[in-house]
């Protein structure tokens, strides 16, 4: 009667994820370059980036697929997590920067800062930065959600203000006065926890961590959505006012899942930054947030693994197409979104499941007629 925590498709996905998480670092570190099975280092970093996108997609699916909150600003939470990690990596450079200032990052020296802005304090400690990775997006989501959900802003209006939120942050982070590197963002990172970021072993470790984070994200999402709380969220999606008349405080439920989702997105951003080596305000751009929605729609809403799958498919397609045919990529992405909306309302995962169901239905009568003949 109650859904199992590990359903068939979740089990398959987690098993595949585990294989990839183990095989890719082995292929990179153990198998010598030139031999079959070797995974080049840049591919490790690329795949690691995809895993972060997949976790970001899972976080959006949690609010959109289950609670029906279409956030068009989820990139903001991802970017904030990324900035929190970036600030730590900047401070870890220490006096090895161009200006050899032990306290101030290079861009601050360049801009003539005489002292470290207050909000940079603490980021020299990894544990503090790790906490902020979840705390900063979580607080933003809480404050934003508190006002939006209490005022009963729903549907397209909510989507528009989430978009405005990420756009406002984009503009703010572009300013040098923000003290976060302006349009250049944060970059030139050297190491994390003393490990050289350019070393293959560090890249592999970050890849493994990304794989584990994605697996954990899916499990957390699954625990939430199979609980009674998850059913209340679906109830809110299906008939919000009905849920209120049953005595549920809809705004509390929305706020809870929105904050959890924002923290998950923050973790994805924090794992992303050391693997790509830079975080800049471009991550706040509205187009990024819309792309996340396309991932989830393509993979299949309300399935968690579908969202992750969609992110991996689009990211891989993007890497290929932007290299092979750079000018058509955005047209392809737009076409994918339109086609999925019209023809695959349940996404790729929905297509696979209905194929399977069809096969079952055609197989069963066949088996019966075979029996009859025998």
């Amino acid at each position, binding site marked *: *009667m109650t859904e199992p925590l590990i359903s068939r498709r979740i089990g398959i996905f987690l098993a595949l994820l585990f294989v990839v998480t183990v095989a890719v670092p082995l292929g990179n570190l153990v198998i010598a370059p030139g031999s079959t099975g070797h995974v080049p280092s840049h591919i490790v970093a690329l795949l690691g980036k995809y895993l972060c996108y997949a976790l970001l997609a899972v976080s959006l699916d949690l609010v959109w697929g289950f609670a029906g909150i279409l956030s068009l600003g989820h990139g903001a939470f991802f970017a904030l997590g990324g900035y929190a990690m970036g600030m730590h990596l900047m401070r870890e450079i220490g006096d090895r920067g161009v200006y050899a200032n032990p306290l101030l990052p290079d861009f601050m020296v360049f801009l003539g800062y005489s002292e470290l802005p207050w909000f940079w304090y603490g980021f020299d400690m990894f544990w503090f930065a790790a906490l902020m990775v979840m705390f900063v997006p979580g607080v933003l989501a809480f404050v934003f959600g508190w006002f939006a959900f209490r005022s009963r802003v729903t549907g397209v209006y909510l989507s528009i203000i989430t978009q405005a939120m990420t756009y406002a942050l984009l503009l703010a982070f572009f300013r040098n006065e923000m003290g976060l590197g302006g349009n250049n963002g944060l970059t030139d990172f050297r190491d994390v926890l003393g490990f050289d970021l350019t070393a293959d072993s560090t890249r592999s470790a970050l890849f493994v961590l990304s794989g584990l984070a994605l697996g954990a994200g899916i499990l957390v999402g699954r625990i939430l959505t199979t609980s009674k709380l998850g059913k209340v969220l679906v109830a809110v999606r299906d008939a919000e006012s009905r849920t209120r008349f049953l005595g549920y405080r809809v705004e*509390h439920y929305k706020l809870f899942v929105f904050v959890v989702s924002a923290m998950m997105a923050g973790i994805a951003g924090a794992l992303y930054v050391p693997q790509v080596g830079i975080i800049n305000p471009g991550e706040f751009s509205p187009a990024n947030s819309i792309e996340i929605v396309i991932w989830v729609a393509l993979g299949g809403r309300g399935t968690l693994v579908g969202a992750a799958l969609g992110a991996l498919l689009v990211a891989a397609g993007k890497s290929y197409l932007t290299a092979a045919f750079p000018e058509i990529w955005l047209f392809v992405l737009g076409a994918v979104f339109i086609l999925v909306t019209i023809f695959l309302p349940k996404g790729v995962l929905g297509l696979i499941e209905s194929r399977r169901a069809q096969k079952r239905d055609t197989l069963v009568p066949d088996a019966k007629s075979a029996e009859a003949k025998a």
Partner: protein
Amino acid sequence: MRESQLYLNDVNRSFDGFKAINGLSLVIAKGELRAVVGPNGAGKTTMLDIITGKTRPDSGEVVWNKDTDLTKLDEADCARLGIGRKFQKPTVFETLSVRDNLMLSLSGDREVRASLFHRPSRDEADRIDGLLDIIGLTDDGLRLAGDLSHGQKQWLEIGMLLAQEPELLLVDEPAAGMTDAETMRTAELLRSIAGERSVLVIEHDMEFVRALNCKVTVLHRGSVLAEGSLDHVSANPEVIEVYLGR
């Protein structure tokens, strides 16, 4: 006279100058079964919105159990006090199973934390089985609510209302989309609930109102036009005028 469960006194509410509720006064006693009838636009649904905290009145008193002011509360507060509502258009959670619809409706802690750590129990399953039996959906427990027929959805929503164990049931046109036999069964069910709980039924179907065999309130232009037994109000010339005279 029994103690009052719900007391409305001189309630007013207008929308853009249109007086949807105009000096409405109404008392529902504990355990009473009451039918409210009235032509379209008489203010029936707005009245329910005011009682359930969805709409705030511009002026007037809405008092629950002689001591609680409902005009300050929202939908969730009112529901937690023990006011259950069934919508005119059957509203169920379409992508959840019939059992889950009932499970979410069962009376209990509604806070986020309670839902997160909630574990299904034997007692809960028994309560759901009992409700499924009452609403005639025993074999449909695992179906998605969205796959039910219109009439079955009506029954499911009545089941959800019963699951809440409210002190007052507000039922908006329960018989719409039901067969005659089902309509009579609904009337019987509501009659059996009354006494223990208060029930306010809004209905257009006069056969159904007759079957309820209770006091009838006729609403017109946001206030009470007549009140009494069905025979009494249907003999009232003003009521005839409103219903037939145009």
